[in-house]
C-alpha cells in the first residue's frame, strides 16, 4: 500500500505547562479531503504550525509521503510539496497582487536566488501568474497593491499563492474566515475544483462548507482528538453536537 500523503503519529506540544496538543495522530491518504474542527483554542492552528514546521513538537513524528519531516526546516517541507494558508491573511502588503503570486511561482521554480535577468521577462513567472489569476477570476486585481484590497479579496489571493506552488498536500487554516457569505460559495466552488490527487487538510468553522468539502472529519477538543469519522458519523455524534455544533448553532 502506498504511504499516506500526511501521517502524524502521537504529536504533542507544550508551551511551558500548557499542553496545547496532546498525543494527536492523524493519517491522510493521497487525495484525502479531511476537515479538522473544534472549538476556539482547541489547538487547530497549533497543529498546522507543527505540520508546516513553524513550531517544533515536544514529542511525536510527522511524515510526508512516507518521509520523516519532523526535524526538517519549514522551507524544506515546502520543497517536498507541502503548502499552507494562514488563519489571518499573510501576504506581502506593499507588493501588487501580481507580485504576490509571482513570488510563489518564483519560489517554486527556484528563481529567488537569481540576481540577474528581470522578473517581468520570465515567462514562467508572468504567464503562470496570468493563467492562475484568470482561472480564479482575479485578473482585475493584478496591478493593485495587496494593502489596498478588502479583506475578502486578500483571502482569495492567499489561495492563489498556495495554488501557484502546486503542492501535493495543502493545509487550509479557516479559508472562509472573513469572507462574506456570497464569497463563500465561490470559495467552495474553487476548492471543489482542485485536482483530485491533491491532499487537503482544512480547518473551518463554517459547517456547511466542511460537510460539502470533506470526506472525513477529525474533532479536536482541548488539544486531543475526541473522535474521527465520516461526515455522516460526525453529524450523528451527540458528543460533537455538545462540544461544538451545539454551542455554535445557538449563537
Amino acid at each position: 500500500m502506498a504511504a499516506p500523503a500526511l501521517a502524524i503519529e502521537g504529536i504533542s506540544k507544550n508551551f511551558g505547562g500548557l499542553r496545547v496538543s496532546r498525543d494527536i495522530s492523524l493519517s491522510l491518504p493521497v487525495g484525502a479531503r479531511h476537515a479538522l474542527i473544534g472549538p476556539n483554542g482547541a489547538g487547530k492552528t497549533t497543529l498546522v504550525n507543527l505540520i508546516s514546521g513553524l513550531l517544533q513538537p515536544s514529542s511525536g513524528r510527522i511524515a510526508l509521503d512516507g518521509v520523516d519531516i519532523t526535524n526538517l526546516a519549514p522551507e524544506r517541507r515546502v520543497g517536498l510539496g507541502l503548502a499552507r494558508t494562514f488563519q489571518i491573511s499573510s501576504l506581502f502588503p506593499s507588493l501588487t497582487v501580481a507580485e504576490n503570486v509571482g513570488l510563489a511561482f518564483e519560489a517554486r521554480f527556484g528563481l529567488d536566488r537569481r540576481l540577474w535577468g528581470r522578473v517581468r521577462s520570465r515567462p514562467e513567472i508572468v504567464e503562470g501568474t496570468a493563467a492562475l489569476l484568470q482561472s480564479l477570476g482575479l485578473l482585475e486585481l493584478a496591478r493593485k497593491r495587496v494593502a489596498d484590497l478588502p479583506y475578502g479579496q486578500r483571502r482569495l489571493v492567499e489561495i492563489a499563492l498556495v495554488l501557484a506552488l502546486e503542492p501535493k498536500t495543502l493545509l487550509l487554516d479557516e479559508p472562509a474566515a472573513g469572507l462574506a457569505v456570497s464569497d463563500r460559495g465561490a470559495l467552495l466552488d474553487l476548492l471543489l475544483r482542485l485536482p483530485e490527487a491533491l491532499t487537503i487538510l482544512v480547518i473551518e468553522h463554517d459547517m456547511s462548507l466542511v460537510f460539502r468539502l470533506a470526506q472525513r472529519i477529525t474533532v479536536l477538543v482541548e488539544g486531543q482528538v475526541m473522535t474521527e469519522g465520516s461526515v455522516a458519523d460526525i453529524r450523528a455524534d451527540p458528543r460533537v453536537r455538545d462540544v461544538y455544533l451545539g454551542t455554535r448553532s445557538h449563537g
Partner: protein
Amino acid sequence: MAVLDRDTINAVREGFTRHRLSWIDTLPFLFAALMYFFAARYLPLGTQVMIQVAFALSLDLALGYGGIDSLGHVAFFGMGAYAAGLYALYVSSEPLSGLAVAACIGALTGLVTGPLVLRARGLTVVMLTLAIATMLHELANTSAMKPITGGADGLFGFKIAPVFGMFSFDLYGRTAYWYSLGVVAFVFIICKLVVNSPFGLAVRGMRDNPVRMRMLGVNVTARLVTLYCVSGALAAMAGGLSAQVTKLVGLDSLAFLVSGNALVMLILGGAGRLYGAIVGATVFVALSDRAAAIDPFNWLFAVGGVLILAVRFAPQGIVGLIADWSQRLGWVRR
C-alpha cells in the same frame, strides 16, 4: 483553462513593478557633469558627495529593500577602505583592481558576519550589527593590529596609479571627481539590476513578510546573507573609493558616525527607492558643508533641524514627497 491571450499576459506583466533605467536616471549624472564645468571649486566636495551616495545606495539595498536594520554598515565601508589602502601599499597602486579587492573583502565580511546577524530580526539586528562594527573599530586600534592598520595614525603614504593607466590623480581633484562619478554609476547600475531581478522581488517579499516567504519554500536566511554580501561589497567599494581619493585610511573610516550619517541620508531622501539615497546623500553632505562653513561650532543644529523637519513633513523622505505630489498632480500613474 481558457487560453491566455497576449493582452492578458501584458496586463499582468504591468502588475510587476519596474525600476527600469529611464531618462530620469541620467539627471544626477548630468548634474554632476555640469558641476564639473561650472563649479570646479567644489569638486572635492562633489567627490565626498559621491562617496556617500555610493555608501547610502549600498545601505538602501540592505535596509530599504531587504529590511535588514543595519546600524553597523560602516564595518563594510571600513573593511573596504583598509583593503584598498593595504592593497595600494603592498600590492599594486592600480585603482580598479584595488576597488575590486575592496569589494571582495566587503562580500567576505558579509559572508562571515551575515549568518550570525541575519537569523535575528529587528532590534537584535540593530544591536548585533552595531556590536560587530564597534568590535572592528576597537580591533583596528589594538597593538596587535597596529603593524597592519597603523593604529590611530592610520594608513598613509601610498600612491594611486592613473586610472586606466592614463588619467593621473591631480591636485585639483578632477580625476578623482570623474573616477568617483564612474564608481557611483557602477554601484547605481548594480543596485538597479539587483532590484529588478527575481532575487530583488524576493528581497522585497522578505522585508514585507519573512514567515510567508519561508512558507513559499524560500530559505530566508540564505537569501538575506546573499543580499548582505552584495550590499557589503558595494559599501566596501565606497570605502575603497574614499581611501583612494583621500590617500588616507584612518580609524574614523570604521567609526559609528559613518553608519549614523548614512542612516540620516536615507531618512532624508527616502529609503527603498535608490533615488532617495542619491538625493539624501547630496543634501546631507552639501548642507553639512555649508552649515559648517557658516558656523563651524554649531553647524550640527542645522543638520538636526532639517532632519526633524523632514521626519515631520516628509516621512517618506524628499523623494517620497516628490513622488506623492507628482502622483497627486497626475504626472505619473500608479
